């Protein structure tokens, strides 16, 4: 199984296999891939704990149904699959700041982390507006 531990497959091969996985998923279980609805559901779960009355009144949480379902487990699975691949390949590296970012904006972790946080807010607001 040398191929399983080889660092970096061709992105064409890995992508084509992801396509096969999607076709199999739809054929066997009727499920298409997605991730962003899971962020709504997780945000809703957190809000149900910290602001339960406010969360209960949110129309959007009623629409998207706050619960752990197929996609939530799919997104959790991405974490474990990527971790397994990184560990098998000895590819796990603690990387607090991406090299391309560091080359342009310097090594400050705080700067990078604040930017990632703010970028994440805008990204997800846009993703949910566009519905996907």
């Amino acid at each position, binding site marked *: 199984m040398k191929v399983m531990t080889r660092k*970096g497959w*061709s*992105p*064409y091969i*890995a*992508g*084509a*296999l*992801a*396509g096969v996985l999607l*076709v199999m*998923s739809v*054929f066997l279980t*009727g*499920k298409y*891939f997605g*991730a*962003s609805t899971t962020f709504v559901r*997780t*945000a809703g779960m*957190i*809000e149900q704990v910290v602001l339960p009355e406010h969360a209960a009144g949110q*129309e*959007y949480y009623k629409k998207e149904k706050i619960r*752990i379902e*197929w*996609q939530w487990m799919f*997104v*959790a*699975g*991405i*974490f*474990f*699959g*990527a971790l*397994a*691949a*990184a560990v098998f390949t000895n*590819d796990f590296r*603690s*990387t607090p*700041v*991406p*090299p*391309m*970012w560091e080359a342009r904006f310097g090594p400050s972790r705080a700067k990078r*982390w604040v930017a*990632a946080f*703010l*970028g*994440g*807010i*805008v*990204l*997800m*607001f*846009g993703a949910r*507006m*566009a*519905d996907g």
Partner: protein
Amino acid sequence: MNELYSGLITGVIFGFLLQKGQVLRYDKQVGAMRLLDMTIMKFMLSAILVAMIGLYALHANGLIKFSIKETILGANVIGGLLFGIGWAVVGYCPGTAVGALAEGRWDALFGLAGMLLGAALFAEAYPLVKATILTWGNYGKITIPTALGVNPWPVIAVLAALFLGLFGFFEKKGL
């Protein structure tokens, strides 16, 4: 099979492929936006190429149902622009942020926290967005073939030729 198990297993395989494809990286994602490194385009277009052929073939035989979202110009254009601005800054899309964290990229954790807050803020804004942006230019559940009023296979053939041409271009230019 219980949908929670099938979701987990599918996600594990997908996460494995994302890591092997080396797409869980800020440098690859922002590299694509800067037209320096087309790794993520190769991954995505290969996945789309295989999946569009496979899914349309299954659909033609009545074996699957499509899950088509509404095309709403206001929501797709404004939401897409916001997504793009945010993606260029955070450097990971939602699914790859989860995988990037699993590879040891700690900045993805802050990206994920921001994404959760962004989702909560969208829930706050939803009644207003629903009454305005989500009503601007709703074309319903269309696809490229249905919008053009043509059989899907010529569209698939054109897209496949386009993707393969792009792959050739990427390889020629060493992207």
